[in-house]
């Protein structure tokens, strides 16, 4: 079954992962800007990173027939640094016309601090100014409920935010209800140990009628699974779900949300693979 991985940090993955993803049906990935595992020291490093996301990475993916898209920001873990945040916000607009940039993301909160929230609002304002869709990270583990609440309340208070153009990612059982209830899209992250298992993701999809919900791997430099979606598809079949139900989750829903950007187009054919180019 063809699928779209809406959240994959491919800069952290080996090229063999693109091959595995391609062989298991992946036709497109979207890669939000994120934390490198350490705090970067200057805006120059973000210039390099954004160039990697908008030039090198789409070429690497294309060799395996995968369309690569990206979202730009300074991520919540580094957004505590207000000076660096403002410098990064200043350079983002010149990348927004790049053909694979879909919007602003993954912005959000980490430990739910004052500075993180101000940086989050700045990103939302930038997205609105440039008419960009928004991709949002919600905090990890014990901070998830609190951070998701603050994010939803903040978005609802900002004039011009259109919930159907906003994806609030990494939902779990205690946050999905008020994300969807306020009209936003949400994502279930198939990430071992710290986020949703395949079985729990399917539980949530069954309970919320699989509308405005996307599943993704969020594979990165941590212990994660670039072929999480094929594993999810296998588990959904085992659970007795029909092919149309599964395809809606792994293909039609991400296609619908990502089409908020006119740049999002799927490859017309997968016969142009250049495996050794």
């Amino acid at each position, binding site marked *: 079954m063809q699928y779209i991985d809406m959240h994959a940090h491919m800069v952290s993955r080996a090229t063999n992962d693109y091959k595995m993803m391609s062989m298991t049906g992946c036709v497109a990935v979207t890669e939000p800007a994120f934390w490198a595992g350490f705090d970067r020291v200057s805006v120059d490093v973000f210039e390099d990173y954004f160039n990697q996301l908008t030039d090198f990475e789409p070429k690497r993916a294309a060799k395996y027939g995968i369309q690569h898209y990206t979202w730009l920001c300074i991520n919540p873990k580094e957004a*505590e640094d207000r000076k660096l945040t403002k410098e990064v916000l200043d350079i983002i607009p010149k990348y927004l016309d790049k053909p694979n940039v879909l919007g602003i993301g993954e912005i959000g909160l980490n*430990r739910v601090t004052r*500075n993180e929230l101000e940086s989050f609002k700045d990103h939302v304002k930038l997205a609105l100014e440039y008419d960009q869709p928004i991709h949002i990270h919600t*905090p*990890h*583990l014990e*901070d998830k409920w609190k951070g998701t609440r*603050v994010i939803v309340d903040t978005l609802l208070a900002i004039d011009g935010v259109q919930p159907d153009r906003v994806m609030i990612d990494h939902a779990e059982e205690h946050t999905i209800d008020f994300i969807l209830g306020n009209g936003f899209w949400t994502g279930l992250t198939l990430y071992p140990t710290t986020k949703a298992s395949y079985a729990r993701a399917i539980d949530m999809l069954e*309970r919320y009628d699989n509308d405005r919900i996307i599943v993704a791997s969020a594979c990165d430099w941590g212990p994660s699974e670039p072929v999480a979606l094929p594993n999810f598809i296998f588990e959904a079949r085992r*659970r007795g779900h029909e092919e149309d139900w599964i395809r809606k989750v792994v293909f039609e829903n991400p296609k619908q949300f990502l089409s908020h950007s006119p740049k999002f187009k799927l490859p017309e054919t997968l016969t142009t693979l250049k495996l050794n180019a």
Partner: protein
Amino acid sequence: MSYKTGEIPLNQQELVDEYFMEYRAMLLAVAAYLDRMDRSEMNAEDDFRVKAFRASLQELTSDETGRVERIQMLLSDNDTTLMDERDVQGAYGAFNPESRTPATEEVS
């Protein structure tokens, strides 16, 4: 928080037939972890993660559906007060009330 139910393709007997072995293994893993804790030097009974884990185990035995949401909340910071500044980058898996700077402002 409302609890939504949804139809699933498998009935209870099919869920038992298909998944009992997997969840039996998980159950034994939790039991063995608790026994291992008992056998080790006792110096973490007051650790906030141990307390949250034990509270969550109580919730597991509830007869009322919605256990996963209630356990998620037992493991969560239930207060939307902002931190004045970041303490650490990572999270611990359970909320530690002693880890935070004092609350000074509510988020509206």
